[in-house]
């Protein structure tokens, strides 16, 4: 678990990779389109994509002879899951505070 988290933080530590992720927020894209306008070679882009894929930040699929990359949907699912749990617990705490007859501020 920790190694995956480390590899993700490391993957995000590079500005080119962050730019690639930023572009993918607009939707799935082939490598050629991703590389357009970046000041690095296409093989270098592929190299960055490999790092992102290893870190499970992006997923790819074949489309004829091209490879299409997109953000890993599991990333959002798990963040959503976390907040689902967080707000459930937080609202119960809120209910206790609001219904307590003599609400305290700090101490």
């Amino acid at each position, binding site marked *: 678990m920790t190694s995956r988290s480390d590899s993700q933080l490391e993957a*995000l530590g590079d500005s080119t990779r962050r730019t690639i992720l930023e572009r*993918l927020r607009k939707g799935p894209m082939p490598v050629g389109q991703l590389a357009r306008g970046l000041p690095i070679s296409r093989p270098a882009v592929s190299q960055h994509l490999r790092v992102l894929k290893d870190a499970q930040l992006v997923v790819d699929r074949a489309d004829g002879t091209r490879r299409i990359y997109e953000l890993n949907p599991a990333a959002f699912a798990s963040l*959503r899951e976390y907040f689902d749990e967080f*707000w459930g617990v*937080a*609202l119960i705490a809120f209910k206790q*505070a*609001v219904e307590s007859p003599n609400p305290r501020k700090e101490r």
Partner: protein
Amino acid sequence: MNTTAGDVTDVPVRKSITVRASVDRAFEVFTDRIDSWWPRSHHIGRSPMKRAIIESRVGGRCYTEQVDGTDCDWGSVLAWEPPRRFVIAWQITPTWQFQPDLAQSSEVEVQFTPVGNGSTRVDLEHRFFSRHGAGAAAMRAAIDDPNGWTGMLPLFAAKAEASQTVGSEA
């Protein structure tokens, strides 16, 4: 479970709870008195959290004061309509810094509706997770990390169950 990208990224978290309190009081406790219930381990500061604050106006800051004297911003007020509704931007980056760009922040909307008998229904929606970008994966990983927001839920549950005890955790 549907796991296509479009569906997963855009499904908001929705939670509702009914409380025995007027709309005015529910709004006030949720916002002005957020410090009375906000989980103490839920902050992005480097030192322990002292106090949680939401400034009561559009553009107001949402932040925590830390015991080392620093402030940690984590959001800002986008809509402020007391006592019925407010919206805040959730401005945290994957590396647990303040995110100044609203286009890369999610949103939390809270609505307060009277349901009779002096009770109020609170509807909360946390939406636009996809705006956090692929960093969402790292965020989640960081939450699971021992140095992240880990342990918040058990800690908090213990606190909630012992609600008569005044906070003296340290």
